[in-house]
Structures are given as structure tokens and as C-alpha cells.
């Protein structure tokens, strides 16, 4: 009995070690692939390569709102598949195996976006609650969407709008997301609308912060409206 216990106890550190090695191997593989491929656009520490002469600069990954699993989808399918009008972020599923993509996402979220989960949780906890009345909330969300969001994102939310077309005439290139395809969940849409794109890693400030204009209740209403009525991707 005593020997069995000793044997068991000696096995625990071994299993922990093995599990660490496994994580570490995946992490190291992710790091290797990141430094080999992603670094040229997103920078060594996810801060974005500022020397790139592009209209739309790559996102600062260390501030991205995407979770690890959402990041896997983004790396795999590319930005365009998930609503970006610019196709600067390619689909890496044609380059890497699924496991390699998972390793890259693991590396990014562990190495320089490790504060994301806590940051999102904190901002949500600090926010004021949504309005209780469902009908009122839906009406409010729809009204704000039509009044403000649709001017850039289009009436159906697909990113085609008069504003975008008019801006092109003056060499102002805007790339509002196709909201029918976005990866973000309702809470993330709320946080994105509240703080704006720049806060979540975009170089340009085309997607403004709406927190001065609308309170949390109203922004939550529009986030729910976008999530329920505009977004077509699986909930």
C-alpha cells in the first residue's frame, strides 16, 4: 500500500512535466511559425510593423479583442471571410495545417495578448446593464443602427454604403466591416462599439468610439440588434 502511494506520488510530477512539455512544444512551434510568417506584418511583439506602406495597416495583435478560438478561425480563413473589406489578412489554411494554425493562435494569445481575457471581463463588469424591456431594447437597437451604423456599414450591414463610395472620390478609403460575417459575439460587439476600433488594435480610427454619444444600455441594445438581426454567421 505504502509503495503504491509512493509510486503514485512520484508519477504526478512526471505527468505535470509531460503536460508542460506538450504545451511548450506547441508554444514553441507557434512562435517559430509566427516569427517565420506573421512577424513581417504584425511585428515581433504583435505591435504591428509601422514601416509598411499600406492603406490599412495590420492589426496590433497585442490589443486584439479576439479569443484564441476566434483567432484560429481568422488565421485559417483570412480577414475577408470574416467581414473585413480589405483582404490584406490572407487565409493561411492553404499554407499551414490546422494544428500549426492552432499553435500560432496559442503563441499570440500567450505571448502578447495574455491580458485580453481579463481586460474584456473587467470592461464588461464595469459596464452598466442593458435595458430590461426586450421590445424597447430591440426598437432602440434598430433605431441606433439605422441612424448611425448603417451609414458606414450599409442598411443590411454588409459594408456597402454611400459614405464609403463618396469617400473614394476624395481618395479617402474606408473599409467598414461586413457585419453579416463578423466573428465577434454580442459582448465583444458592445465593447467594440463602446471603445472603437483603435482601442482594439486597428491603426486607423474610422470606427469611432461611441461611448460619449450613447450610454452602455443603448450600446448593448445595438450590439444585441447586430448580433441577432444583422449577423448571419452561426451564433
Amino acid at each position, binding site marked *: 500500500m505504502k509503495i503504491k502511494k509512493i509510486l503514485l506520488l512520484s508519477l504526478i510530477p512526471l505527468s505535470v512535466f509531460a503536460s508542460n512539455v506538450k504545451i511548450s512544444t506547441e508554444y514553441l512551434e507557434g512562435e517559430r511559425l509566427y516569427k517565420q510568417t506573421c512577424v513581417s506584418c504584425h511585428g515581433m511583439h504583435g505591435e504591428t510593423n509601422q514601416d509598411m506602406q499600406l492603406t490599412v495597416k495590420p492589426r496590433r495583435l497585442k490589443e486584439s479583442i479576439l479569443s484564441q478560438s476566434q483567432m484560429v478561425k481568422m488565421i485559417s480563413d483570412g480577414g475577408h471571410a470574416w467581414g473585413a473589406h480589405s483582404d490584406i489578412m490572407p487565409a493561411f489554411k492553404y499554407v499551414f495545417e490546422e494544428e500549426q494554425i492552432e499553435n500560432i493562435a496559442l503563441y499570440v494569445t500567450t505571448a502578447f495578448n495574455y491580458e485580453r481575457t481579463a481586460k474584456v471581463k473587467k470592461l464588461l463588469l464595469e459596464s452598466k446593464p442593458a435595458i430590461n424591456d426586450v421590445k424597447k431594447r430591440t426598437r432602440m437597437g434598430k433605431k441606433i443602427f439605422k*441612424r*448611425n451604423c448603417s*451609414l*458606414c456599414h450599409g442598411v443590411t450591414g454588409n459594408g456597402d454604403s*454611400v*459614405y464609403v463610395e*463618396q*469617400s473614394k*472620390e*476624395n*481618395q*479617402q478609403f*474606408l473599409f467598414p466591416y461586413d457585419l453579416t460575417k463578423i466573428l465577434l459575439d454580442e459582448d465583444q460587439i458592445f465593447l467594440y462599439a463602446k471603445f472603437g476600433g483603435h482601442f482594439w488594435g486597428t491603426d486607423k480610427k474610422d470606427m*469611432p*468610439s*461611441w461611448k*460619449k*454619444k*450613447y450610454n452602455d444600455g443603448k450600446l448593448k441594445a445595438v450590439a444585441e440588434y447586430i448580433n441577432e438581426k444583422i449577423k448571419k454567421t452561426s451564433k
Partner: protein
Amino acid sequence: MKKIVTTSLVALALVVSANAKNWEVDQKGKTFVPSALTVHKGDTITFKNSDPFAHNAYTDEETNEFDVGMQATGKETKMTVNSAESFSVECAIHPNMLLEVTVE
């Protein structure tokens, strides 16, 4: 008697419209210039857009409700101040733009 009243009303309206002033507000660098105006009922405000992108000035205040709509670069749109109540004007695209209009 009726003719006198009608004539004086028409005259009054003419005096009011003759005194009505047009105010110009530019939209430049994602701000209203000027950002505050003091006007009188019956005055008009012309909204210009000097930015290289569109704006959409509007107010939701019931008494002076208006919506310029999508206004391209270089375009001008005029609105009339119909009520004696003060109001604020915003841009539907750029949430930090604000124009305070005081009606005296």
C-alpha cells in the same frame, strides 16, 4: 377690417423674413466650425462640408427636427430654425461632432 389685418400680417412676415439671418457652419476636421451659435427663430443655417469625406448633420430635438442627410464634400445644405427652443446638432457618422444652437 379683414383686409387690414391680412395686410399687416403679410407686412409683419416680410419684416421678419427680411431680418432673418443666414448663419454658416462648416464641417472641417470632424468638427463643426463654429461649435456654438446664437440665432433667432426664422434664421437659417447653411451647413458646408469642407472635409474630404461625407457628413450627416442632424438633430433629434422635436421642435427643430431636421436631417441634412449624407452630405458629400463641397456640398451646402440650408435649414430653417422653426422654433424658439435651443437645440444641438450632431453628425450621425462622427460621434464627437457637436454644435450647440441657442435660439433667442
